[in-house]
C-alpha cells in the first residue's frame, strides 16, 4: 500500500520539478556556467554599477544602476552572458498608461547604435502611438 503512495509522491515531485525547469528563463548545464566574476566584468564593460548579483530563474540577475544612474534589473544568460531581460526604473511607469503616445525611440540598452541591417544609416526610425 505504501508503494502507490510513494509512486504518486514521486510522480508529483517529478512533474513539479519539470514545471520549474520549463519556467526558467535561461537554460544551461551547470558545467557551462560562466563565473560570477565574468558577470561583474560584463557589467563594468557596460558602465553599470552593480549592487547585487544573484541567480534567479536559471539566470544571473544584476541589480544596480546603468551609466545614467537609472535603476536597472538585468537577467544574464549564465553560459553566453547575453542580456535576456532588462528592466529600468521607467519600465514600471509605462504599463497602464493605456498606450499613450510616444514618439522618440527608447534608448534602452547600452548601445546607442543598432546592428539592425534593415535600417538605413541616414534616417532615424520613428514610432508613434495615437
Amino acid at each position: 500500500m505504501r508503494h502507490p503512495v510513494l509512486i504518486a509522491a514521486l510522480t508529483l515531485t517529478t512533474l513539479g520539478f519539470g514545471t520549474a525547469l520549463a519556467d526558467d528563463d535561461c537554460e544551461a548545464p551547470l558545467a557551462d556556467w560562466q563565473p560570477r566574476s565574468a558577470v561583474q566584468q560584463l557589467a563594468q564593460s557596460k558602465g553599470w554599477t552593480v549592487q547585487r548579483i544573484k541567480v534567479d530563474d536559471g539566470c544571473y540577475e544584476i541589480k544596480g544602476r546603468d551609466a545614467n544612474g537609472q535603476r536597472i534589473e538585468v537577467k544574464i544568460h549564465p553560459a553566453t552572458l547575453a542580456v535576456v531581460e532588462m528592466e529600468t526604473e521607467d519600465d514600471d511607469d509605462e504599463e497602464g498608461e493605456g498606450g499613450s503616445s510616444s514618439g522618440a525611440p527608447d534608448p534602452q540598452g547600452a548601445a546607442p547604435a543598432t546592428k539592425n541591417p534593415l535600417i538605413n544609416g541616414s534616417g532615424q526610425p520613428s514610432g508613434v502611438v495615437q
Partner: protein
Amino acid sequence: MKKIAAALALTLALGLPTLAEAREVTFTTKLKQYGGSPAFVVLYVTDANGQYQGTLWMAGRETKYYRHLSDWKRATRGDLGQIDGITGASVGSGKTLTVKIDLADALIDAGYQVRIDAAVEDMGDSPGEIVVPLSASGAGKPVAGRGYVESFSYAL
C-alpha cells in the same frame, strides 16, 4: 570650371546611388477595441523562407514580456541588440501605431515579408498576427490581423 564640373560629377556619382537605395516606408497598425492592457507589438522582416532579416519596431519596453512575442523571440533568440533605438511605448486598445523607417529598395518586390507578433497581458499571445509580402503592389492595401490587429498597411 573643370574642377566644379568634376566635383559635380563626383557628387552625382556618389550621391545618386545612395538616394536610390533607400526610401521612407510608413507602416500603420491599427488595433481592435479588445479592451485589455496595452499590447506589445513587434514588426519585423523575414525572407521568403521565413528566415529572420531584422526588426522594424518594438512597441513595448518591458523586456520580460518579449517572450510572449514568440515567433520574434525564437527568430532573434531574444537578442535585445536587434531593437536598440527602435523601441517605443506599447499600443493601447483601439490605438494606432505608425512607424516610419528608411528601408533599402532591395527589400521591395524581392520576396521579403513583413510580420507582426502581438501579445496582451492576461489575454493571450498572437504570433504571426500579420504576414504580408513587402511589395509595390501590396502598398496601401489594408490587411486584417488574426487577433488584435484591425488593419495593417504600409505606404512606400
